[in-house]
């Protein structure tokens, strides 16, 4: 497993999840979990994905998702899971 957390924050609009999921599928990135909520009035989605079989390296996926985010008017971040695990789990 090569777990990465993808977060999408911004104004809600049609097709955000579809667009991100399609991109991930095209690049053989497996989605393990999706959750979403509204935090301080903003659409907030988190995906836990496995990038072990990904066609592209982390940096490329991250750059591509940033661009997709710009097109959708949301901020998409792609961070390795360890930073969250380290901070919130002993």
């Amino acid at each position, binding site marked *: 497993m090569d777990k990465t*957390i993808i*977060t999408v*924050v911004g104004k809600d609009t049609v097709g955000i999840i579809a667009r991100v999921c399609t991109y991930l599928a095209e690049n053989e990135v497996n989605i393990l*979990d999706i*959750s*979403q*909520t509204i*935090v301080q009035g903003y659409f*907030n*989605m*988190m995906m*836990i994905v496995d990038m072990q079989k990904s066609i592209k390296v*982390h*940096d490329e996926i*991250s750059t591509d998702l940033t661009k997709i985010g710009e097109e959708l008017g949301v901020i998409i*971040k*792609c*961070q*390795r*899971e*360890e*930073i*969250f*695990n*380290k*901070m*919130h*789990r002993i």
Partner: protein
Amino acid sequence: MINIYEVAETNAMIEHENLDVRTITMGISLLDCCDTNLEKLCRNIRAKITSLAKDLVATGEAISREYGIPIVNKRISITPIAIVGASACHSPEDFVQIAVTLDEVAKDMGVNFLGGYSAIVAKGMTKSDELFMRSIPEAMARTERICCSVNVGSTKTGINMDAVKIMGEIVKATAERTKEKDSLGCAKLVVLCNAPDDNPFMAGAFHGVSEAEAIINVGVSGPGVVKYALEQIKDANFEVLCETIKKTAFKITRVGQLVAQEASRRLGVPFGIIDLSLAPTPAVGDSVADILKAIGLEHAGAPGTTAALALLNDQVKKGGVMASSYVGGLSGAFIPVSEDQGMIDAVEAGALTIEKLEAMTCVCSVGLDMIAIPGDTPATTISGIIADEAAIGMINQKTTAVRIIPVIGKGVGEQVDFGGLLGHAPIMPVNGFDCSVFVNRGGRIPAPIHSFKN
């Protein structure tokens, strides 16, 4: 599994509360570079640093992108040059040549500072140490990225007052030599007592002789995160206050630990320590003074400041120590003036004086830091200030330091701007009474009684 709220909390710290890893500092031993020929020594130094640190900046940037955490500085610390250059240097100018070489190497490696243009003279000075110290003004004038430190005392050895006297003169001479840049040279020159061998923070970083061939040390930061956490518990009692600081320090430090381990793995260099410091920057919201305000003071410097800083420093350590496998360096809260907008505001409001800052250095991790003083301050007065700080460090078994800038041509009420991370500052008044007879006595102050523990 990690949930969305935890992810949102971490990202809010990064995006809104200035959470970052302040520095990845690679410590490099230059002991095997020593040679009697100065040219050869400089070649050896260049080759050694390049071979170990060539991927440092790129690795830091890659980690930063993959984890989504800013890593602000990538830096290098080296074996104190007074030791490395001892057999090759026969004049201050010879040492300056090493400084110039180091500056070029720092630029080639893409690091913003290289620390270790240093001497350890806590008990006595060798001939080389003294030549080195005399080279400092010229070295600081002719380099951009070199940081310089001199350790003049320790709890184990006492205070070398001969070195204290010389360093007062050297600080003044460095200010004079860099006066066209508002005496900027002094912003990269620090005089220490009980200097740690593994400090990743500038200007006092060097790679001590007790250290390994090469090591990765990481300095964390995050005053903005602590301030935000405290603003959520405005009316809470001290128990809740302290628990909140501890928990926040734990979270901040865990990020530093992750970055340090990852940098160590990728660079093939062992992990040394995490320095658990709250290091402010001039950016709004990245201030230790603002934490003191969030604890309940109108300004840093108000009565209660020393107590508030003492509890902050202690809770940061308590929270951070469990988050990291190895803790070292300075670890605590930094209280520089020019690098902390809240401190600058406090000075301008008349709330904070050098004497109060001196009291604060008794309970925090460093000393009188980035304080601009009038350019006509006598060298002996600067030596007196250094001696006072060194005494606080020696007696309290802690690191203390003096990084003051006598700004040539400027006086109290005027401003000085160093730019970037070094910030800007109002020039603060210094006690004008004379201490030259004390400073000129010569010799050493003996080690304190509680240093004899054998």
